[in-house]
């Protein structure tokens, strides 16, 4: 059995804004094993990035964790001070962001920025750090690493900058690499390079990856497990096959039906999900997807369904499944429309 690396339980996190409380995460539970590649997908604003930042201990004002636990590699992240967190961040867990330009410092060379991370977390001397920095750039496939170390971020292309970000994230060989839309700003041919690189490095360094993306193609080709989020809640989780071939939540089903497929040999009609995304200041009390769900029942509007376990690895929070389960048990209809 593989070891559990990350265990988030019933995490609740809110932003206390002048306009009101934004309940960005509502009872989010995610568990991943060592060596997993986990994809988090979901609508814009569903809480993917906020989840990632909370694992990094980067919940910023006006955001606050108001419930639940984050267990990572033996650390209770939710209870740690910033000082304690600094030892872990960049060392045991690293993150790469969507836009490499905003996360690299424009006034320092690439070399400065890699060495800084190394000095912070290791005992390498100057010469060793230089050697390690060169090694890292080679690892992420940048040619001419000595020259690159002396260059500034703006002298590199988008794809090269993203490789540098990965090099920095990998500097201390983290157990977990979180990639928050790491290729959204890149062209598909460059995206393919970066995805290939991440999978290759995962094998080489034996790390785990959380891949946050809205691109279902990326999750299908990279991830083994998937968490689907909607409006601050996890609505479904399972293996990549379970989610793609046997989706159980109405949002997941709708999402899969609404994307055109490049390999479709006949013209398919796209089936969009009607309605608009949730207003996070006034979220519905029940299932967050209820206002857009075509199978919505009275109970869906009133209260949030529990997870129904479909297999050891597959679970989904939808009243339809609860109803099926209840029917199967009692042979009757317990939840009326």
């Amino acid at each position: 059995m593989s070891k559990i690396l990350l265990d988030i339980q019933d995490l609740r996190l809110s932003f206390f804004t002048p306009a009101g409380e934004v309940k960005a995460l509502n009872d989010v539970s995610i568990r991943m094993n060592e060596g997993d590649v986990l994809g988090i997908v979901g609508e814009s604003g569903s809480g993917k990035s906020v989840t990632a930042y909370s694992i990094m201990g980067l919940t910023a004002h006006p955001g606050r964790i108001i419930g639940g636990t984050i267990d990572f590699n033996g650390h209770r992240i939710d209870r740690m001070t910033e000082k304690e967190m600094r030892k872990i961040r960049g060392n045991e867990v690293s993150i790469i962001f969507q836009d490499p330009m905003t996360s690299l410092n424009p006034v320092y060379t690439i070399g400065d920025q890699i060495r800084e991370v190394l000095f912070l977390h290791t005992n390498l001397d100057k010469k060793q750090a230089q050697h390690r920095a060169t090694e890292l750039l080679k690892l992420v496939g940048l040619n001419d690493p000595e020259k690159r170390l002396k260059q500034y971020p703006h002298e590199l292309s988008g794809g090269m900058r993203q490789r540098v970000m990965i090099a920095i994230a990998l500097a201390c060989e983290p157990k977990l690499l979180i990639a928050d839309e790491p290729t959204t700003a890149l062209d598909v041919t460059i995206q393919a390079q970066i995805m290939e690189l991440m999978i290759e490095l995962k094998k080489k360094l034996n790390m785990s990856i959380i891949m946050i993306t809205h691109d279902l193609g990326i999750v299908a080709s990279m991830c083994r497990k998937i968490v689907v989020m909607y409006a601050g809640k996890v609505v479904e989780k399972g293996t990549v096959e379970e989610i793609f071939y046997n989706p159980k939540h109405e949002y997941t089903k709708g999402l899969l039906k609404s994307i055109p497929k490049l390999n479709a040999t006949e013209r398919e009609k796209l089936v969009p999900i009607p309605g608009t995304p949730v207003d996070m200041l006034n979220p519905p009390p029940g299932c967050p997807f209820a206002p857009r769900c075509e199978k919505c029942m009275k109970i869906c509007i009133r209260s949030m369904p529990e997870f129904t376990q479909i297999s050891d690895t597959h679970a989904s929070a939808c009243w339809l499944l609860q109803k099926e389960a209840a029917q199967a048990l009692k042979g009757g209809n317990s939840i009326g429309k």
Partner: protein
Amino acid sequence: MENKNTTGKAAGKKTLVEIQNLKQYFAVAGSLFQKRYVKAVDDVSFHIEEGETLGLVGESGCGKTTTGRSMLRLYEPTSGKILYEGKDITKVDMLPYRRKMQIVFQDPYASLNPRMTVGDIVGEPIDIHKLADSKNDRLDKIITMLERVGLNSEHANRYPHEFSGGQRQRVGIARALAVNPEFIVCDEPVSALDVSIQAQIVNMFEQLQEEMGLTYLFIAHDLSVVKHISRRIGVMYLGKLVEIADSYELAFHHVHPYTKSLISAIPIPDPVVSREKKRIVLEGDVPSPLNPPSGCRFRTRCAYATDICAENEPELRQVGNGHFVACHHI
């Protein structure tokens, strides 16, 4: 000038818009004596038939937006011709054509004036082209347009910030439709939207095309979306059209080395298909358009490149019915 009829017009179909050998260069800072140019669009020709959708794909900076904007004469073309219903409009007064040719932008957040109500945003082009006889007529027209795109009269008095991304994109489309255009350049109209909202907007574009007989140039970097909506697709690389064909022909029987790598790089949202898919991972980055490679512009990243690729620029040649490719080794 030689009129290269490069994109294979079918007999009996009416061409609505056409560009011939279009070049759009932008001067950028260089030394005092030597101006340098970004050759954003360099000798591109294609036509679009009435009622059809031509998709345009390619990597960032390859010239898709510039092509679309030049067709509407939002830039003055460096050289080449733009024909509308067979008439050369490269040098004419555009006002009468502005009504017929519209554009929808990528970013539904930035492209709408935040200080105007949605009603006035949609009404502005109606005013510019003096299409309303009275205040009531103007309002009627605005409401008709809002309803066409799935909004309603209540929305007219609201401001853009009160809307979601998908709704704002609908407003942008209503504005483009308000003057009853024939041709619309859709520049990445769904790229900024959530996947679940993209399908709503794509379906709406299709429905409007059917109802109003619209013709589209549909620009996007997502080939799956482009294939879904387009009848034909053109692929650009560094200012050049490298391949153009029927959408299915392009998706399944593409031949240009660049198209091959582009399509192989697209991750398919199906785990089994995706895992079995062979990727051609391209080496290197896109060269600078300020200093494009000699000969074939793709040669620096192309696995098939030989000496001739550096010496001569390949011309678009027909390789099948309506299928054209610019490559020395095909």
